[in-house]
């Protein structure tokens, strides 16, 4: 997956995929492909979120810590 993809794009693509999958207009062959893609996207998003969470928590923690000083 290209690194240039954003979380938002990832989510958008994921939603498109999910929607396609759910419409049953997709063949089994594509389905597997799509699912694979979806899994990739999900993984990406999860990673993104996790990293963001870490980052944000770190920032907030630092502010809070300062606050207690």
């Amino acid at each position, binding site marked *: 997956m290209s690194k240039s993809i954003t979380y938002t794009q990832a989510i958008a693509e994921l939603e498109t995929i999910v929607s396609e999958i759910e419409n049953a207009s997709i*063949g089994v062959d594509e389905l597997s492909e799509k*699912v694979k893609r979806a899994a990739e996207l999900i993984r990406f*998003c999860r990673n993104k979120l996790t990293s963001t969470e870490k980052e944000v928590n770190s920032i907030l923690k630092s502010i809070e810590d300062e606050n207690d000083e």
Partner: protein
Amino acid sequence: MISDSASIGQEGKRVFSLSEITASIERMFSKYYASPYWIRAELSKLNHYPQSGHCYPDLVERQEGKIKAQLRGVIWRDELFEIARKFEEVTREPFREGISIMFLAYVKFTSEYGLSLQIIDIEPLYTLGELAREKMETISRLKKEGIFNSNRLLELPLLPKRLAVISAQTSKGYSDLMITLENNPWGYRFNTRLFHALLQGDGAVDSIRKQLGIIRDNQEQFDAVLIIRGGGDEIGMACYDNYLLARDVACFPLPVITGIGHSTNETVVEMVAGINKITPTDVAHFLIGCFRSFSDRIKAAEQMLLPGVMVVLETNAARFNTLSGSLLNLVKNTLREESDLVEQQALVVREATNVAVFNHRIALSRYESGLTMRPAQILGSHRATLLEQQKMLGLTTRYLVSNQLKEIGTVDSRVKLLDPVGVLKRGFTITRLKGRGIAPGNLPDPGDLLETESASGKFISVVSEKKSI
């Protein structure tokens, strides 16, 4: 009664000689008037003959002024002396004309002197009564005429200086008067003029009245009339009870001052006179006394003048000293009060100024305290706001992230649900024709080789029959 010896006159008439007649009358009188009688009559004229010493008074009886009866009397020298003595002793009047008397007399007729009353004794008490009666008559008449007090009502000048003196120049009374007046130790000057008059007995009334008349005609020249008598005996005062004289005195236009010197009854003239003094010396003292009292009045005025003036001056001096004294005090008070006022104002300025400054300080400090409290509060509230924002930031951010995670999870499960792998695990298989799923356009014909994929592995099979649905 006529004697036989009377001769016969011519023509057969019987003619008597005068003596025959008088002798006859004499015999008759001696026969019928043998005893003396008490008779009352007025002694009209005394007819005293000093050489012989006898007296042949005219005796009358009047009725309403007219002679009713009159008869000659005779008093022999020896009887006269005794009668006069006795008369004067009782009546204090001389035996004189013009008085009523009661006498004892023989009715005598002598050939030589004719008819007469030979007076041998007298009852002076009768005369005394008569005089008293006359005096009473005079008084009541003057009173009746309303002039009794006239002279007494006249005002004597303060200084009876010009004096008409009715007196006798030779009298002791006149001399006493003049000596006393002239020898007064104060040098008072009297202007006296003597009007000579008889002052007692017969003729006194007329004499005095005549002089009064002269004085009355010159009344403006005199202050008063003095009737002065004195030095002699006190006989013959009855003239001063005479009505005419008393009337003249009472009506006299100038005050009459009497000094007719006696110690017994006051005469009518003395009663009606403006001022009556007993003796001429008394009169002189009285006159000097008038001067004295005038002089005393002058002296009194003089003596009162200086103290009076001093009182006026002292009173005024005291009054204005008081004024100038109170002026000083008032001015000092005024200045002190003003000064107090100014100093009070100065104090008030000080206090008020201090109060004003203090009040400004209070006001300022109010602002100051208003200033110190608030900024901390403001900053505190800002701090709170900021903290809230900070909290919100944390919450929302974390929520956002977790939400996304949840959503991803959902998507993940949905994807997993549709994942063929999952289906296969439940026993489903995927059949492919020529590598592609069975679908219109890619339907197998009998004989086609089908690849079946299951969870447990792939299976290759051949289509035997084709059935329509």
